[in-house]
């Protein structure tokens, strides 16, 4: 890995928060190797990094939810070790998380009381966030996600923090609410207070933030000023070697395939998904590009039989199908690899049992297991994916990458025709990513059909023949992989026509 100088421009400036050399591991998994972060007073500071780069761990350490194995934190000129979130809160450091932390079964008012939040302050910030008429007797269980995020934010603001951390808060917010959050952040900056802003959306970062610290594989790899054309550098720092690979691969992206139709989706509607039609052919990897929550989750879940569509058809091998259970989809040859490995794996069980699970998924297979046959199939799959562990080890003891491989190996052993990969490389190291994409391409080359969603747009070109783009639940664009560079995808994913202005002019406002 190329050594990137740990540059901190203007290192002598007065700092509100200095974190240096923070490290944390969970069992065999290293979440944070050596993270450095320096935030000045009156600054909006972005914390960037690919999934699994260690952002959440860093945030948790800063706010006292976790304690670091190594490293120091200086806040307001004093070296501090926060043992709990309330200690950090008392010191003036508070975090608003992506999933709101209001208690679902206490009224909002009771929630405020529980955290000893000054109510008049809370009211004032609610007004600023445009929720003047909000009823404090509401029960969070009954409120929508964006509302909860804003309430959580107002609660954090109400204690007048010196440093506010916003952990992916905009991920679940519609554009107009995002603007309100930005305004509040700018106002804090004007008052000389600081904000750490975590987001996947580059456009938001360059519109809002003064500086950005980039993490990769648990290490700080650089500090950049996004406003001065630093976007390119951020991307490069975040991606590391993959960026070069994209460049290399992009020279020869796979051509669109012409195999038989594997799956035809006709006017499919479910939740956010609003009438999507496309075909998936054998022998191709069809990429799905979309920002968070544009209906891709519903699409994959319908195809895998996890949920039922409200209307529309899924045609497999010429026959319209209706899946009532994942088992139905699996029988039709369609298998899902979910993003959340925890969702798919039996953590206490061995690699072998995990891989062999689909082999016993029907009543007719409840009888004795043929150990030799099972061993052969499991070992073939494990070898093909290069899972470097014994098949008897418990899955929870494996690294994230190996766990995801186990989830894929299951279907190599179980058999399938169409592979539905939903963000399969989330939080996985680069080497494993490359292996997984290599495998996906190989499977397609051998005649399978693959539908692949990845939240990391640059990776689309690594594996796909063709890309469809979802925005607001609709299919807004389709292009061959050769045209699907990150810029084109970003535009399309923001719902912009391909010849329009730069995306951030829309986003930042």
């Amino acid at each position, binding site marked *: 890995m190329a050594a990137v100088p740990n540059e901190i421009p203007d290192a002598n400036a007065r700092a509100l928060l200095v974190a240096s050399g923070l490290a944390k591991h969970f069992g065999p998994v290293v979440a944070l190797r050596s993270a450095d972060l320096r935030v000045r007073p009156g600054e909006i500071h972005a914390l960037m990094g690919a999934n699994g780069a260690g952002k959440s761990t860093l945030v948790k350490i800063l706010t006292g*939810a976790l304690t670091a194995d190594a490293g120091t934190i200086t806040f307001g000129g004093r070296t501090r070790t926060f043992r*709990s*979130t*309330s200690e950090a*809160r008392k010191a003036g450091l508070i975090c608003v*998380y992506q999933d*709101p*932390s*209001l*208690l*679902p*079964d*206490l009224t909002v008012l*009771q*929630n405020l*009381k*529980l*955290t*000893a939040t000054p109510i008049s302050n809370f009211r004032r910030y609610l007004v600023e966030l445009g929720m003047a*008429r*909000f*009823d404090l*007797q*509401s*029960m969070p*269980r*009954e*409120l*929508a*996600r964006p*509302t909860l995020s804003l309430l959580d934010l107002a609660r954090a603001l109400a204690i007048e923090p010196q440093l506010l951390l916003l952990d992916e808060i905009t991920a679940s917010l519609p554009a107009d609410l995002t603007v309100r959050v930005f305004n509040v952040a700018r106002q804090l900056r004007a008052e000389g207070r600081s904000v750490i802003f975590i987001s996947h959306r580059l456009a938001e970062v360059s519109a809002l933030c003064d500086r950005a610290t980039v993490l990769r594989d648990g290490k700080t790899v650089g500090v950049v000023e996004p406003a001065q054309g630093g976007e390119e550098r951020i991307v490069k720092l975040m991606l590391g070697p993959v960026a070069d690979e994209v460049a290399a691969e992009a020279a020869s992206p796979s051509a669109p395939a012409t195999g038989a139709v594997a799956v035809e989706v006709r006017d499919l509607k479910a939740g956010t998904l609003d009438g999507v039609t496309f075909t998936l052919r054998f022998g191709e990897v069809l990429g799905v590009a979309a920002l968070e929550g544009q209906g891709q989750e519903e699409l994959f879940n319908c195809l895998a039989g996890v949920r039922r569509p409200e209307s529309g058809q899924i045609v497999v091998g010429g026959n319209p199908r209706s899946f009532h259970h994942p088992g139905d989809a699996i029988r039709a040859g369609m298998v899902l690899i979910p993003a959340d490995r925890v969702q798919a794996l039996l953590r206490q069980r061995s690699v072998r049992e995990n891989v062999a699970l689909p082999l016993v998924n029907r009543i007719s297979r409840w009888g004795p297991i043929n150990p030799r046959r099972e061993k052969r199939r499991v070992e073939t799959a494990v070898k093909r994916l290069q899972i470097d562990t014994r098949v008897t080890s418990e899955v929870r003891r494996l690294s994230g990458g190996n766990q995801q491989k186990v989830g894929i190996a299951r279907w190599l052993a179980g058999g399938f025709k169409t592979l539905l990969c939903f963000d399969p490389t989330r939080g996985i190291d680069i080497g494993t990513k490359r292996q997984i994409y290599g495998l996906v391409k190989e499977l397609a080359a051998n005649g399978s059909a693959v539908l692949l969603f990845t939240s990391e747009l640059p990776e689309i070109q690594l594996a796909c023949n063709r890309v469809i783009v979802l925005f607001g639940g609709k299919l807004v664009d389709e292009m061959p992989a050769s045209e699907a560079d990150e810029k084109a995808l970003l535009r399309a994913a923001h719902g912009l026509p391909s010849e329009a202005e730069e995306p951030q002019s829309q986003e930042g406002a």
Partner: protein
Amino acid sequence: MAATAAEALRPTGIQFGRGIRRFGWTIAVYVLFGVLMVVTVIIKPDYGSFEWNTLTLAALPLAFAAAAQTMVVLSGGIDLSVGPLMALANVLALRAMVGHDLRYSLGVALIVLFEVTLAGALNGVIIVVTRVPDIVITLATSFIWAGLALLVLAKPTPGIPLDFQNLAQGSTLSPWLPDALLLLVVFPLVWIPLRRSRAGLAIYAVGSDRNAAFRSGVNLGLTRVVAYAVGGFFAACGGLALSMTTGVGSPLAGTYYTLSGVSAIVLGGVSLAGGRGGMLGPIAAAYILSLIPAILIYLGIDPNYGQMIQGVLIVIVVMVGGIGTMLRRP
């Protein structure tokens, strides 16, 4: 009770509807009790203050058992030792009260309350410290409390002072307002201040979502211990109520109340997943569960059907709750 987000986002004008949603189950339980009372009077036209008195006496210990279980379940736990805790309070009271006057007995009652509250707290401490699941620990401690009760008193023995018994068995104000009903005053005295305090909020918080509670700065361990301790307090009240209503100290008296307490809270609308429910529902449920055997007797049916009906009732109640949740899912 849950509702769709779209409904809840409407800013005003849903106060009434929301009240119905939030307290609907509790209201339904009281309506059910009312209906059952009407049915009872129809079946037994000469239903009088004596029968009513009997019902309140039977329901009082169960109401406390339900309250004890409610406290623990609200905090996301379960206490399978409620019955033995009640038995322990019951026999401790007998041993110390025999042959003494009311004032002395009341002093004893206070000490018993203290001791058994401590025992409840110990349940919580063991669970928090060992991190063993609450089912296992309270199952094990139920042996311990039951054994201690047997040590205190080997077999059922009468001898609770009459004056102390009369605290529940009399009807000072009116034949239709038996003292056993007045003793329910303990609930608001303990529950309302607790419900309004930060500790009470914390108990709901821990049961509702442990992660969010932790982020809100709640001390998870301490809160759970407090919930078990208050549960112990109510169990002690239940044991003393048994002393008053039966006049006997019995080491096996509690057996029935662990299961019935759980039944009462399920019927009373407390979510076994924790964090949801209140005290009013379980109390009404305790009266319903005590009324059913009486109705059977009035109908001339073998009261042994009572247990069967209770079981079926619980299953139906939980299923209705489950189906309701399924239907509400978008």
